[in-house]
């Protein structure tokens, strides 16, 4: 080596370098061992858990993007998880749509424009101050002051909110707004004594949140969020978990799935392909999942363009699409095929109109589709391609699907093949999601997917996709009625629904809306989006499931008050 020959002896610098390198490696190894120990210590407590409580549940991501900042303002779109810290007035059960009293005990509609809510007594904020109806009134008036926080746009309907006593709040609306109850019920309540001091609530990050909920924030950094049990909670005796430990999914979806497989999550909501093999099989006794149906995922057609403006053509399409194949191939069999009524069945069966045959489920029957088309005047040319009523061959239609949404792209391809059987040519295009959203809103499409319904608000379920106030001419962005459905009868029914106070009346009107869906086919529901939900019964039992659907996975407050320790668990 020319440098060694030149120097003749090993210089001091080499020894110093060796020493430094060794020290470096030792430090790294030390940190490695230390970090490793931390991971395995997490569930075996050092201080020992309080008797009857499970020390920690491992949860998934807690929001805030890739570099989460401390933001516990429940109305901010960039906030971290606040569902366990702040509570709402009523819990509308995600699965059964029953109204359960929560921070409020009861409600009455004194008229279709006046709602009176009675709040619960004896509830405390986590800092010890008492909760009252004044906090409720304050929260709603906060949205008036800071419209950037009004996530439901409630002040477009409200005219005033006042606390008439320590436990009574009156909501006065500009017009009959019975369906707005869901949005009033869902709003999380924040304490007046803290928030009234903020001059700019829209920018308030609420670093140390004070809520009525079962948990408070213990610590937070960009990798993890720790919530601890709130002993002042009004149902504290029902909360059997000491800590909720959220971890950020750094490393992406693949690493996250591996963590799920290893049993590192007790409660999560991830999409997992082939879940029986990759998750349940790893620990069949404890690894469980349940995917209850969410919203309708439907085929939206541009109703301003021929032949989509022909109801017979649309009706034919309902028979031409193989929903079962979409369910099995594109969705791994995780979801259920949808009914043409626009209801989420079987959960919302109570709302089904009695004279609709077969629950509005349209079978896959390509022969019948061809018959309907032929009867309506669409002939098939000698090349097998379908011709319009004017005798000219139909153009190829475009089906725009969001790039990267693989299961939707697969479903679109199945539909393309189904329509090819009828002689209709479909091109599946996959621009970025932002472009698809923009094109869908402005009516620049032939076919796209749309999501509507689900939830428990029947009014919004039909109003958003079908009311003429929600649409706009092609070229201008529509709010949510992307297919450009304009029908006076639909609008009238929806306006009636807004005033109907009795459930019988509401069901009658919704029945009429279902008939419009079935007979006039403004959109074609294909399948119900699944709500992802994985859970482990190793530490706690009492989870909702297909056998015991006492709540949906989104009813987190209900679930946390029903979980109880698994007697067989040998940890702490």
């Amino acid at each position, binding site marked *: 080596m020319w440098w060694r020959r030149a120097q003749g002896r090993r210089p001091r610098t080499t020894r110093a370098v060796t020493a430094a390198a060794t020290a470096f490696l030792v430090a790294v190894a030390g940190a490695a061992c230390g970090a490793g120990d931390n991971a395995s210590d997490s569930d075996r407590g050092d201080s020992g858990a309080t008797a009857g409580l499970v020390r920690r549940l491992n949860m998934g991501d807690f929001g805030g993007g890739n570099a989460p900042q401390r933001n516990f303002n429940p109305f901010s779109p960039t906030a971290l998880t606040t569902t366990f810290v702040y509570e709402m007035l009523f819990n509308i059960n995600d699965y059964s749509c029953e109204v359960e009293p929560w921070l409020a005990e009861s409600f009455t509609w004194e008229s279709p424009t006046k709602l009176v809510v009675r709040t619960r007594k004896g509830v405390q904020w986590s800092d010890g101050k008492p909760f009252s109806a004044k906090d409720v009134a304050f929260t709603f008036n906060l949205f008036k002051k800071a419209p*950037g926080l009004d996530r439901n746009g409630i002040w477009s309907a409200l005219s005033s909110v006042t606390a008439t006593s320590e436990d009574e709040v009156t909501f006065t609306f500009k017009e009959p707004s019975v369906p707005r109850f869901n949005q009033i019920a869902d709003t999380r309540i924040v304490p007046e004594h803290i928030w009234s001091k903020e001059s700019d609530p829209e920018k308030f990050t609420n670093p140390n949140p004070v809520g009525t909920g079962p948990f408070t924030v213990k610590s937070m950094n960009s990798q993890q969020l720790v919530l601890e049990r709130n002993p002042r909670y009004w149902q504290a005796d029902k909360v059997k978990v000491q800590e909720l430990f959220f971890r950020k999914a750094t490393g992406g979806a693949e690493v996250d799935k591996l963590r799920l497989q290893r049993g590192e999550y007790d409660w999560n909501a991830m999409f997992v392909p082939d879940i029986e093999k990759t998750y349940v099989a790893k620990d069949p006794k404890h690894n469980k999942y349940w995917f209850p149906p969410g919203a309708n995922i439907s085929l939206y057609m541009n109703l301003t363009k021929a032949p989509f403006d022909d109801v017979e053509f649309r009706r034919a399409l309902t028979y031409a699409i193989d929903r079962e194949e979409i369910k099995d191939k594109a969705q791994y069999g995780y979801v259920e095929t949808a009914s043409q009524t626009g209801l989420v069945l079987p959960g919302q069966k109570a709302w089904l109109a009695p004279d609709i045959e077969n629950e509005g489920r349209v079978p896959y029957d390509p022969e019948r589709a061809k018959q309907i088309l032929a009867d309506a005047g669409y002939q098939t040319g000698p090349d097998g391609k379908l011709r319009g009523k004017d005798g000219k061959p139909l153009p190829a239609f475009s089906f725009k699907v969001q790039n990267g949404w693989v299961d939707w792209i697969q479903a679109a391809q199945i539909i393309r093949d189904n329509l090819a059987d009828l002689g209709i040519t479909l091109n599946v295009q996959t621009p970025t999601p932002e472009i698809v959203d923009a094109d869908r809103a402005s009516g620049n499409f032939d076919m796209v997917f749309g999501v509507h319904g689900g939830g428990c608000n029947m009014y919004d*379920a039909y109003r958003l996709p079908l009311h003429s106030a929600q649409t706009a001419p092609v070229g201008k962005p529509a709010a949510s009625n992307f297919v450009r459905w304009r029908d006076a009868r639909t609008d009238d029914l929806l306006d009636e629904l807004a005033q109907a106070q009795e459930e019988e009346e509401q069901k009658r009107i919704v029945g009429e809306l279902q008939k419009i869906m079935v007979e006039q086919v403004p959109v074609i529901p294909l399948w119900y989006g699944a709500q992802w939900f994985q859970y482990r019964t190793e530490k706690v039992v009492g989870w909702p499931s297909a056998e015991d659907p006492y709540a949906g996975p989104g009813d987190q407050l209900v679930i946390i008050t029903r979980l109880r320790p698994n007697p067989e668990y040998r940890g702490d």
Partner: protein
Amino acid sequence: MRYFASRLGFFLLTLWAAVTLNFIIPRLQPGDPAQSMVQRLAGQTEAVDPAAIESVRVLLGLPTGSILEQYVDYLKAVVRGDFGISYTYFPYSVTHIIGEALPWTIVLVGVTHVLGFVIGTLLGAWAAWKRNTKFDAVVSLGSTFLGTLPFFWIALILIYVFAFTLRWFPEAGGYSGEIEPSWSWAFIADAVYHGFLPALSLLITGPIGWIMSMRNNMVHTLGEDYTRLAQAKGLRTSRVALVYSARVAILPNVTGFAMGLGTIVGGTLMVEMIFGYPGMGKLMYEAISSRDYPLMQTIFLFTTVGVLLANLCADILYGILDPRVRREAQA
């Protein structure tokens, strides 16, 4: 002197052009940040309420006024150093968010850049001195082969072997979260532990360029007459190799190194995505996907200014190191 003045003038002109392009390009993208945010919160399977989108628009205070007005406001803000409030991390300021991510990138990419340069140059010089021996063959062929492997493939192999199978290192992240970020030894050790695999993957492919260029340059200078004269005069081999050959051969590498320093600010997107490293590259990707204009613009600005400054430094450095360049400029 004229050389340096002309370089400075050129720098200012390109800076203005970069700032203007930086304003125009994000606005050419279609897409509405408010819609993007609400859609992300709702996920794929929930109906989106247009009232939510409207309220987010109000919250973010999305830009109004003509494009020209926005451009003037933007220039004023840049000069003031006020880069606005991020959409994705509302209401935190862009400076705050970048301030958190920048140190991670600068340390990881900076250290590996310097180390890569040092290792690459030394290996290249050594291979050139030992040209046509087995050592030279191994180094040249080895680096050419490694250079053809896709970088992310190497990174994934490292993760698979060391993180999943052997579990010696963590799979992702900048730090474990168990220790609060601070200037304590525990945290720094934790950060180094997490940075080891990303740094290793960068160091496997990093030095390759330096090796090849240094070796080729030095083979060239070793064949020069002045080298042979120095050897004939009886100077020590080490002095001939270092002072007469390597010091001349290293000039292009030094300027390449200085220019490379500019790209550090942008981070190495692929490393950070694969390893989930909380640096500027990952931040930039997130800003672009969510149409976070203020954050996007500022990151692009920092990156372009970084590259321009580094180019300026490289030009000046070259002028200092190599008198021929200065004399040419004066002529």
